[in-house]
């Protein structure tokens, strides 16, 4: 069940350098070819290994390993987690791949940034129903903007009138830290 979530992991993919925007781990070591067309060291794409967080490790566990971890929990909690896992396991593969990518992106963030993003993702999820759509649209717009334009928008009076201080924080933190993988349709 769970190892299937890792089907799209391609450790040898080149990664952008890690900075404020979440990204994969540091670029893999590469040896380029020498100037002599007949010579040179072949390129080696070393696997990119990031330090996996709990969610990533969960996705990589075999069913046996997961069971060993679960059996140490109270029975009621075991049952709840099994229900959650069953629900998640029946997601379309594309959704699972997307979540796996998003988790890897989160795990590549510095711990403080990662905590902030998770906190704001959770806050976004818990918004009142009538605020979801305007927040969604604005977040997508902001994520697609260059940084300067985004900051100008976030600091504008019109924006501040449109959203509460908490909503503004959510939009600022998420638009500045989420990778483009989080945009719908990617």
């Amino acid at each position, binding site marked *: 069940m769970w*190892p299937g979530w890792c089907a799209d992991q391609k*450790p040898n993919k080149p990664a952008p350098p890690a900075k404020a925007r979440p990204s994969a781990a540091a670029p893999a070591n590469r040896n380029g070819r020498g*100037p*002599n067309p007949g010579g040179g060291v072949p390129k080696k794409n070393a696997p990119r290994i990031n330090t996996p967080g709990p969610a990533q490790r969960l996705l990589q566990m075999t069913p046996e390993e997961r069971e060993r971890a679960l059996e140490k929990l109270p029975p009621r909690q075991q049952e709840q987690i099994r229900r959650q896992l069953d629900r998640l396991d029946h997601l379309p593969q594309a959704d699972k791949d997307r*979540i796996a990518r*998003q988790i890897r992106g989160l795990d590549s963030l510095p711990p403080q940034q990662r905590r902030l993003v998770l906190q704001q993702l959770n806050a976004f*999820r818990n918004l009142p129903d009538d605020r*979801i759509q305007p927040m969604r649209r604005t977040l997508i717009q902001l994520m697609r903007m260059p940084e300067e334009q985004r900051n100008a928008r976030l600091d504008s009076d019109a924006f501040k009138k449109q959203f509460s201080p908490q909503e503004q924080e959510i939009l600022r933190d998420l638009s500045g830290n989420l990778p483009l993988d989080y945009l719908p349709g990617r």
Partner: protein
Amino acid sequence: MNCPLETHEGSALLLAYSSGRLEAESTVRLQRHLEACSGCRQFVENQSAVWRALDSWEAPPVSTDFDRRLYQRIEQQVSWWDMLIRPFRPVFQSRSLPIAAAAGVLIMAGVLLDRPAVTPPASPQESAQVEALQPDQVQHAVDEVEMLNQFNHLMRSEPADPTSKM
């Protein structure tokens, strides 16, 4: 031209020529010398053989469960002896050991001649610390995955979207 093999600097010249880094004027002079000097010619041919061997080598594709197997292996208890000889196992198992050994000697010679001062690489301050998932982390992990799923759903759906689920 003096034979490059008889001088320390000359060996560097031959290595630069073999890797195509020698400037044009020196290349012409060296090529004229190679026509007459079998020793230097042999050196260049040996270097070229090494480059060709390396060029033909292709790294095998990385398996999709590479990370999982790596972490499992790191978690296993390994004896000090096993850790010591493990890097050399592929060499002993390889059928092309003589070629690999010769290539290794030539490359070593080239590196030593080209860069006499070799600084040992700094040992990494931290190795990847992989721990088994603790029971209390399982709930957090599942919650995180569920949260991302719900966030993705919220980011996808529009009120009038007939295909929206949940």
